[in-house]
């Protein structure tokens, strides 16, 4: 190792940062190298001096002055806080408006899903109800056929009434009514959805208990379609239905008297109401179909007395009771269907919820991935920053080291020049020596002069004495 290699070791040794081996090696070198030993002593002396640097006292009023500055800072911060809050609010608002920071899932994204789900549930419900309604109609038809054939066979009103009471169907059915009912049951559902209401009303004008049995189902479809959440069926329509039902009930009560006098006049009233319905929208068509069905029902009720003109009041009462029982069954079916529809909707909504949860989980995973990526990027950036800093620090050290070395070289040159001048000064010392010698000579001369002076004085005294003695 060269002397330069021991310089860092010496610095570390000053701070007790060397291992025992390193310290022994350094000690051996110092023992063998006088210049390094001198340097070591110098370094130790410098450190000892620096360690003795006394602590300066704080200037007078230092803390009070700082505290005043601090209070000022606190006041400024207190003033800035409301502004900062406003700015934050503004920023948040802007971000919300632009949609950049809105968390997943959003209302906006949920709504189309909901609507789609509800629409799907409605379609499904309609299909189910349509099928159910059809099967019920078919069941009714079957019952009618059975009853009709029984009537044809016996041709007895009393027996027919008994049969119908047993089967639960209307007692006033004739063979002509069966035919009309068949045509009406085929026409009524179609009219309710697609055909113009006028046709529906014309069809429904044919008196038939079959048509009456089909009416509640088409009505149920229309009502349930309208009643799907969140919009309830329009009040106006409900009120109209009530009015029609009331009028039907009145017609039923007045039937024995009025029907015998003017059966067609009363039957035409619902048709007029149905014909006034709008024809353009699907809702209007459905409403008109409902009206048509209701009018058919009313018509049927009003038309019953003429068909049963020979029946007794008791039979009429029984038929009303049977009709009421049937209506109960139908309303129960309606309720069941509504419950089914609601359950379907709930099921589709829960499915949507599950899908949303899955999507949210997926989103979380994506967000986590992004965060981890961002974090790793940050780590890389920090590492790069450290490298850059280290590099710049090294460059800085190199710069200062080079500069110090240059300065040192310059100083060494100057020292050499000074040494040369010192050598010149040595010649001057010789001169000084001769000068000093000359001065010594002068001093001795002076001494001898004074001695001479003294001697001369004595001589003069002696001369004076001789002159005095001489006559």
């Amino acid at each position, binding site marked *: 190792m060269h002397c330069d290699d021991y*310089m*860092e070791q*010496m*610095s*570390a040794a*000053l*701070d007790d*940062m060397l291992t025992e081996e390193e310290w022994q090696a350094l000690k051996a070198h110092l023992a063998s190298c006088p210049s390094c030993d001198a*340097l070591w002593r*110098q*370094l130790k*002396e*410098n*450190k000892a*001096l*620096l*360690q*003795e*640097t*006394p*602590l*300066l*006292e*704080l*200037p007078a009023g*230092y*803390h009070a*002055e*700082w*505290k005043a*500055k*601090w209070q000022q*800072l606190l006041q400024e911060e207190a003033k800035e806080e409301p502004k900062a809050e406003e700015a934050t609010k503004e920023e948040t608002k802007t971000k919300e408006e632009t949609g950049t920071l809105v968390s997943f899932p959003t209302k906006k994204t949920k709504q189309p899903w909901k609507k789609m789900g509800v629409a799907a549930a409605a379609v499904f419900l309609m299909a189910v109800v349509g099928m159910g309604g059809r099967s019920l109609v078919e069941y009714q038809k079957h019952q009618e056929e059975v009853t009709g054939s029984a009537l044809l066979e016996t041709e007895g009103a009393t027996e027919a009434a008994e049969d119908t009471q047993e089967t639960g169907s209307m007692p006033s059915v004739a063979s002509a009514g069966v035919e009309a009912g068949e045509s009406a049951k085929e026409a009524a559902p179609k009219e309710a959805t697609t055909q113009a209401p006028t046709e529906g009303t014309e069809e429904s004008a044919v008196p038939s208990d079959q048509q009456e049995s089909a009416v509640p189902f088409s009505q149920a479809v229309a009502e349930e379609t309208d009643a799907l959440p969140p919009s309830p069926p329009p009040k106006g329509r409900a009120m109209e239905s009530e009015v029609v039902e009331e009028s039907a009930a009145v017609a039923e009560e007045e039937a024995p008297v009025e029907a015998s006098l003017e059966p067609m006049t009363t039957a035409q009233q619902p048709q007029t109401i149905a014909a006034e319905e709008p024809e353009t929208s699907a809702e209007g068509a459905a409403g008109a179909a409902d009206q048509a069905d209701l009018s058919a029902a009313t018509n049927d009720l009003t038309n019953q007395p003429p068909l049963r003109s020979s029946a007794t009041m008791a039979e009429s009462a029984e038929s009303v009771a049977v009709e009421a029982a049937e209506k109960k069954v139908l309303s129960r079916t309606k309720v069941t269907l509504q419950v089914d529809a609601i359950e379907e909707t709930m099921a589709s909504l829960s499915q949507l919820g599950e899908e949303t949860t899955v999507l949210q989980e997926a989103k979380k995973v994506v967000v986590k991935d992004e965060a981890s990526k961002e974090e790793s990027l940050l780590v890389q950036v920090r590492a790069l920053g450290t490298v850059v*800093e*280290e590099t710049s*620090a*090294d460059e*800085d*050290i190199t710069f*200062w*080291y080079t500069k*110090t070395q240059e*300065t*040192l070289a*310059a*100083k060494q040159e*100057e*020292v050499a020049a*000074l040494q040369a001048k*010192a050598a010149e*000064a040595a010649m*001057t010392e010789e001169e*000084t020596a001769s000068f000093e010698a000359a001065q010594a000579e002068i001093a001795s001369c002076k001494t001898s002069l004074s001695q001479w002076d003294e001697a001369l004085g004595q001589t003069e005294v002696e001369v004076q004495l001789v002159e005095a003695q001489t006559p």
Partner: protein
Amino acid sequence: MDRDESLRLAALAKQGDMAAFETLVVAHERMVYNVIYRMMPNQEDVKDISQEVFLKAYRYLDRFDQKASFSTWIYKIAVNTAIDEMRRRKGKETISLDWEFEGEDGAQKKQYQPDGPSVEEQVLEKEGLQEIWQAMEKLSAEHRTVITLRDVEGLSYTEIAEITGTSLGTVKSRLARGRMALKDLLLAGRAYGANSQKQTERRGQRALR
């Protein structure tokens, strides 16, 4: 103030306890003032800069993570503030290692010369202290920082590395180079002093002739 107490006060200060923060300031202000004074010699605004250190500490108190000691953290702010300030002033003031003087033949020659007593002479009464601090003033900021933190403040290599934001190796290397540079500056100063004395003597001798 010991480490645990300062950490406790720092935690309170972070929660908004002003009195706790002021206690920390009182405990560290003399130390910070001295560090700034040693790092920025010859500056009149040492007081302002050292006070700014505590204002910065208050502003960034929430960044103090309680892992390091509060003293190390405040040292770091002080050192960074001083270095930033010196860098900011670098373009405005030039610190030259050389000084021109009139030689025997009347020509301008370059020679190292301290700028005169900048460190409080009354404090540096001990023989050699004034001389060494005059040499310290001529050191680079990086070298002066590590030597001050190690030899004057007595901090460990690890603490210095944390304060200066460098590695242990860099601290070790800077200390070694800084100490060598300081030694050279001292020798140069002494050579100048000797030369100056001889010049005075020679002038006296000529006057006698």
